[in-house]
């Protein structure tokens, strides 16, 4: 222990390492009114609340995309539907976020543990899809989606000519 | 006794031919009388000195070239035409002259008016014999866009980025200046009447409470003194 202390003290001259070593053999008497069992009960109580808190937190994570939807709606309305730099940036952002989240789903699923995990996963995916759907709707209102026949006009080949004709004024 | 308006010549010819066999003429020279449209063209003096042969390059077109007239030494012209309505256009490649419509009725009365293609029967008369005053020179070419430093300095992106920066740097310096501070203080801001309103309202609704409050506060003050 002394060795470790010395090592620690070499790093920072005047700092004291206050890391918890309550299992260490200390000769000093504990201060009056200190009950060593309290810490354990506190720990136990936190452990008990852990699971419900965990579920609550995972629900928070699962509902996060859905919470962002109203904010996105408002931003969409503010930005407008002309084709200029800010709307396109916004639409891009709205597309990229759900897609990135959908691709990094494995990481978020590690956080979502517990009995209601499957439901949370589904809700999360649903939320991301709703966000994606919102981005598509914005695209459609800006007219970027090729839903009309005029969007496919450039790919139409010219009609092939079946008959060949010619002539004109008589040259006689 | 000019050629085309020679009445005696024509009358004798007509009398002679009235008993003759008519030869069918297929051109426009039927028994119409021909009248002279006369006019004068002016050119800007400085330009005429630079281009002394401008009269050679100026065409007078009647009805788009159906009849043509040429300018004489004094820049006047005359054309013989049968009766009808004609557009007289003086064309020079450098200077614009406004075209004029001349109506000649069969009796020989001339009327010159401005051309209005949209409302052809509108009459806005112009002096006859025609006087063509020079208009603007034709601008055939576009100007090249010159690159100016102001384009770069006053472009919206630059303004958006640099103007706030400038303001951020300048304003504190303005604030630190003691003179400006004095001026700011001297500016008399109109005093808001809001506090008066609130006092009025409190006195209206809760006047009694105010008295109780004062006694309570005084009581607390005494208590505090005792503990000391």
């Amino acid at each position: 222990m002394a060795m470790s202390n010395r090592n620690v003290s070499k790093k920072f001259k005047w700092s004291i390492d206050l890391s918890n070593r309550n299992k260490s053999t200390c000769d000093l008497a504990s201060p009056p009114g200190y009950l060593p069992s309290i810490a354990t009960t506190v720990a136990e109580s936190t452990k008990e609340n852990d699971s419900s808190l965990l579920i609550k937190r995972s629900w928070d994570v699962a509902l996060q995309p859905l919470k962002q939807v109203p904010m996105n709606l408002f931003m969409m309305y503010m930005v407008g539907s002309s084709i200029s730099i800010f709307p396109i940036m916004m639409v891009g952002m709205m597309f990229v976020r759900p897609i990135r989240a959908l691709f990094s789903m494995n990481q978020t699923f590690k956080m979502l543990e517990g009995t209601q995990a499957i439901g949370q996963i589904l809700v999360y995916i649903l939320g991301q899809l709703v966000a994606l759907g919102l981005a598509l709707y914005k695209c459609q209102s800006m007219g970027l989606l090729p839903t009309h026949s005029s969007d496919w006009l450039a790919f139409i080949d010219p009609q092939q000519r079946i008959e060949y004709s010619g002539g004109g004024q008589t040259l006689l | 006794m000019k050629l085309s308006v020679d009445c005696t010549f024509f009358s004798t010819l007509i009398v002679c031919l009235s008993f003759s066999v008519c030869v069918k003429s297929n051109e426009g020279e039927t028994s119409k009388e021909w009248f002279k449209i006369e006019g004068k063209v002016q050119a800007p003096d400085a330009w005429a000195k630079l281009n002394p042969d401008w009269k050679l390059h100026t065409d007078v077109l009647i009805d788009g070239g159906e009849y043509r007239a040429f300018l004489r030494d004094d820049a006047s012209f005359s054309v013989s035409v049968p009766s009808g309505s004609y557009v007289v256009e003086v064309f020079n490649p450098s200077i614009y002259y406004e075209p004029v419509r001349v109506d000649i009725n069969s009796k020989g009365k001339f009327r010159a008016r401005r051309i209005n293609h949209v409302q052809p029967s509108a009459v806005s008369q112009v002096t006859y014999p025609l006087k063509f005053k020079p208009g603007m020179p034709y601008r055939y070419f576009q100007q090249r866009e010159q690159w100016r430093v102001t384009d770069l300095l006053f472009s919206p992106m630059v303004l958006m980025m640099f103007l706030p920066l400038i303001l951020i740097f300048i304003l504190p310096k303005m604030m630190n200046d003691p003179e400006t501070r004095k001026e700011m203080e001297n500016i008399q801001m109109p005093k808001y009447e809001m506090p008066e309103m609130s006092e009025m309202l409190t006195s209206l609704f809760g006047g009694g409470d105010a008295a109780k409050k004062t006694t309570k506060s005084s009581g607390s003050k005494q208590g505090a003194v005792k503990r000391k």
Partner: protein
Amino acid sequence: MKIFSYSLCIVFILIQTINGLYEDQIGKFDWRQQYIGKVKHAIFDSTGKKIVVGTEENTLALLHAGTGKIEWRHLLGSNTKSKITSLFLLSNGKVASISNIPTIVRVFDVSSGILQWEAAVAKDIQPVLCKWAVSKRDIISVEINPSRSGYDLVLTEYSSIGGTENVASTTELPWFTLGTNCQLVFPHLVCLHPQEDAVNIVDVRNSDSHQRIELQHLGITVGADQLVTLGVTKNFVSLRTTGTFSLYKITDEGLQRTSAEWPSETVLVSVPTVKDAEAQDQYMAALIKREKNYAVKIYDLEANQVLEDVSGDMKLPDHAGEPDLLSTFLMRKPNGELSYRYAISTTDDSLHYGSKKEVYWTREEALTSIVQVEMVDLPVSSIEASIEEEFGSDQALGGILGHTIKRLSSQFRQLLIVTQQLLAGQISLVRREAVGNNNKALERDRFGLHKLILILTRPGKLFAMDTLSGRIVWQRLLKNVNIDKVRLYVQRTSIHYPLEPQCTILAKSSTSNQAVLFVFHPITGEPAQFGSEGYVNLDYSVQQALLLPQNEETEYMKPLLLLDESAAPHVFPPTESAINHVVKMSNNLFMFVADTKSCVLRGYSLAKSTADHLASAAVWQLQLCSSSDSVEEEIVSIVSRHPEEKVFSQGRVLADRSVLYKYLNPNMVVVATAGTNHPHHRGYLNLYLIDVVSGAVVFSTSHRRVQPPYHVVYAENWIIYAYYNEKYRRTELSSLELFEGQTQSNSTAFSSFSAPQPLVDRQAYIYPSHITAMKDTVSEQGMTAKHILLGLSNGWIQEMPRAFLDPRRPVVAAATPEMREEGIMPYLPELPIPAEAIINYNQTISNIKSIYVTPSSLESTALVFACGLDIFFTHVTPSRTFDVLNDDFEYGFIALVLTGLTLASFITKRLAGKKSLRQAWK
């Protein structure tokens, strides 16, 4: 009013977006050449340094004798019927020109060209004969008019100073009959009827003096079928038969023969203008035809002999025709010798000027009567030829190794060529080269802007001009052909290396009615190896010809399908591959022939053709004109789409994002017929859109109270035509656009037999000037916007965007925001003519007759060639130059900024590193 001004503002704002030229672009890619026309009258002035010229194009001009340049010129009238009948040089330095229809006498000052006075003679009846002459003070006109008892001679004298009429007298001519040819040698009128054998001379001032002289007394014996022709040269009268040629001087006693011997091969005779005024009628010049060249002989009439030492020979270039006008000038050189100058106009409309030594200059005036123009590509340069060679050959030379070796060797060769050219300074690394470099080889340039213009003219002369400089590369006169209805076909261009390009001219033989084909190489001008020197005489006459599309089988040669007078088809070149190609296509080949006078259109199908026997059958017939007697109606123009035209987009996008599909019928033809003398409508115009495969009239429209000139332009799915509205006295442009509808009937193929009925949108606009020619711009892929080029009567060519003539332009009250979104301007009845839209700025072209447009290899640029009295060539960029960098691209500035920024970034990086280091040490 408010809405009107608002829309006017929009229009003017949109006008500013029309592209125009910049002042520094003048002369970079455009040039103009001025001409005067075929010379009919040429007079040397008294100094011999200037020639006064009157031409068939109704132009009076003054040429500088030393250089041939035009000092001044006047176009006396654009009416094709009006002509200059006589030209006289007056003694006071003025020239008098007399035109007919209407008869006008004009006197101009020779040195300055300014009109002195003008007098019009209004005639009630056309005289049978009208001759003019000039005396010392007066201009005299002698007319023979029909009268009660035969014919009258009317003499009118006009003062040469003011044009006032002095004397008018009438004499009876009892001996005159129709068909008599008279010549006026003031004061005598000499007349000869071709079937009589006597010459009548009358003094026009004295009605009693009439002499009748038998030809035998003059020493001329006329055979049974021989004709005697009477000519005049200043004050001498000439009588020519097939074997003799004699010249006479007219005195009061009669004709006095000049005793000089005139050989029968004398082609032309002229009295030369002499520098010293006393010897005016002393000399005579004659042009005598020899085998290979011509001889110019000078006769001294007083001494009655030929001046052999003054006379000389003259050789005209190969491409010149026979001389038909001679004008000479005699002067005495400082050492006392006489020397002559001549100006000769030949049948190919060119004017040659020379002396005994040589021909000094030639003016090619055939370029004023251009019939057809084609612009052909030039062959590839030697570097690119080697590339083509490498990739074109499909021999397997030892597999990969062989190909690698070939590639390396060809690239090494190319490197050598490039370094050679660089050293010789022929490659300009940065910009396009300026015009004026006459030594540029006839090679294709990178953008396809260097082409060869093939020009076919009315006298049968073929020119090839370089587009960069306007210089004539080669010229050729077609021999023994009748250029009445002639066509030029480009059968193969030079893009198919190593196959040689080939062009064919279809004309009629001058002797019979049969067709003659002249095949030649367009770049060198040499005749091809067909027939005799390129002339292929066919033993049938051709009523219509069609150029078929090319493919690899026929070695990229487009077969020419000829339909003879009995509607039997023939193929040229008659190779097996061409005939097989035609037979393969025969089921779907149709031709139509239109007779303009009787307004009949006939359609033929070649479906029954086999390899042995090509046959055609008449399938449909249309009679378009009215059959009433009083009305004269005939077909005015037949316009079809360019066979290789590409349409880029198949429909038009509307504001609600639906598509209006275009009706693109490749077999549709626009036929315009015009009638005059209608009892109620006077002049009228009928326009028919006819599908020439099925014979169906797709659409027709009619305009009443209209007058020529009529112009029709047809491209893609729209038609624009112009006419003169007689009722409101203004030119109007009417525009038609055809659509299939919101759905396409057949998206893969178009067949005329199952074509839908189109929807037609139409609208008319007022144009404030007079149009003499109209054409649309073309581009290779059809992507560039189409602009209409309008040639105006004042010499301008205006480039108008087709959007101005869109039939969907709404009236202002019905204008919706969707219309503005589509880019359609609200309707304004009058079209503007802004000066920026004039592509020939101040280089006006007199009397524009037609405009030809060809695409270049650049999608944005089209080459425009306009012809009339002058010719003009330029580039036109309807959507601005979107595929090349602009001329004013600032290479230097951008390079400077880039290097500056890179330097700045390095410096700041260094400074920032230093600063952070300093911070870390604090």
